[in-house]
């Protein structure tokens, strides 16, 4: 932990490097919960409805619901409106599949990392973070909030 924020080791679920402000969320279904072409949160019941996941470090326990979420995430990454990184506390095959396909088709590498559930609370909303993930290990670094 540094003065500028958390510095966590994590497990890599998908390699890549991304930086952005944290967006804390309840488990989110990309399909039906976010717009494939804009990255906007559209789930009627989501407290952050109208906020875009675009360029954010999306922090949530897990994904939720339909496997069509893989397609929606891949499409958002193709369009450049996807998140900058995703931090999960449960390995989620549906979310990771979307990232694998975007890397295969478009060479867009979305870092997806796994932390312990209690570590989610070390990642406060709106804090600038950089997520760096290689094939096995990953790091989440808090940035100076200027």
């Amino acid at each position, binding site marked *: 932990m540094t003065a500028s924020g958390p510095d966590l080791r994590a497990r890599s*679920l998908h390699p890549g490097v991304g930086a952005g402000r944290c967006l804390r969320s309840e488990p989110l279904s990309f*399909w*039906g919960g976010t717009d*494939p*072409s804009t990255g906007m949160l559209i*789930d*009627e019941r989501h407290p952050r409805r109208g906020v875009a996941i675009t360029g954010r470090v999306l922090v949530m326990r897990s994904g939720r*619901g*339909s*496997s*069509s979420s*893989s*397609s*929606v995430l*891949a*499409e958002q*990454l*193709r*369009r450049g409106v996807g998140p900058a990184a995703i931090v999960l506390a449960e*390995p989620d*095959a*549906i979310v*990771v*599949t979307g990232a*694998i*396909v*975007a890397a*295969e*088709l478009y060479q867009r590498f979305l870092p997806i990392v796994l932390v312990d559930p209690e570590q989610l609370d070390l990642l406060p909303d709106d804090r600038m973070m950089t997520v760096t993930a290689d094939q096995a290990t990953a790091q989440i670094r808090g940035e100076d909030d200027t």
Partner: protein
Amino acid sequence: MLSADQRARLAGEAGSGVALCMRILTKLARLRGARRLIAVESAHLDGCLYHGQAGVDFVERLVGSGTTVAVPTTLNVGSLDLLHPGLVRTSAADTAAANRLMAGYRALGARPTWTCAPYQAGHRPGLGRQVAWAESNAIVFCNSVLGARTDRYGDFVDVSAAVTGLAPEAGLHLTANRRGTVIIDCSALSAELRSMDVLYPVLGYLAGELAGTGVPVFTGLAATSPGEDALKALGATAASAGGVALFHVVGVTPEAPTLEGALQGADVPTVVVDVDTVRAARDRLSTSSGERLDAVSLGTPHLSVTEFAALAALLGDGGSFHPDVDVWLSTSRAVLAEAQAAGYVDTVTAAGARIIVDTCTYVTPVLHPGTRVVMTNSGKWAHYAPGNLGVDVVFGSMGECVRSARQGKVVRDDGVWS
């Protein structure tokens, strides 16, 4: 972890499309903690529903490299009714893209069944067989009613399994993960209620709430012996409301000859449901309590021939629907042909029903834009339509749907629920 043959395919010896699919499967196998990839003997693919260009790019990458499916493969709904163009209200651009996606999946050599109920189109793997299916209701039916074994597959992974004939050895492919996690005791419900189809989506909704992504085990239903249509409705609703991919009905489904068998000896909690529990669950499936009614939607999952027969019997007296209520039936082209041959289609269309195939009323724009309140006997439709379509929904039996559509307003029959 991989055999020599699998390593060769990963390295590209069977072509770049197979190698791409092997990369996806091996990465997911690692994520899921699978020790190896196992052979699957059939697949059902859900990637043909259009969500954007990425899906088209993926299937065209496979088709462009000469890739085909390695095992018998059926296709889920697309975004279009290819037999009745014009019924789906998509833009010209979206129609072209959805067509291209569906054409790509045909080019892989999959059967153009375009149905969420492949088990009603002859795709019925046997007890204990390993398969790779997508679409939550198809998955739960395959596991629970057929007793074949699939994990929860979806976009990109389903087609990777079809192209390679392989799947990670994880999840519901493994016997230990198929044991019940909660008992739902239905023996307190009246025999009359247990004999009615409208109960089963409600039991599915409760199972989704109680079991989450676990394996609910129903007891107290053996004497009624619910049929395939009831089990289909139960599973589809449980998969939507929770994340249920396998359920057991003791004395009815193939892996539950006894309660002990369904539990594999485990000790799990029991929830007793009574008429108050199921009535409250039924009410949670509706978002509207008034009389207003604009449309009725039946056939999610797709109507079976026996459901067509039941509907035709209700409509056989020659009465017709109220002119202000649109009645939509979603089914597959295979079932439509059978229902036509049996004369059911003439009966239901004479009453004013419109039939849509290859897609479904909750995943693509079919309903008239002014539609606000829709009645359905589908727990799955009731769960998804308010979010997907922005409509209010009233859940009821097929009989209540027909009576309401004729009178032009919601009509309930609470007799069996008290």
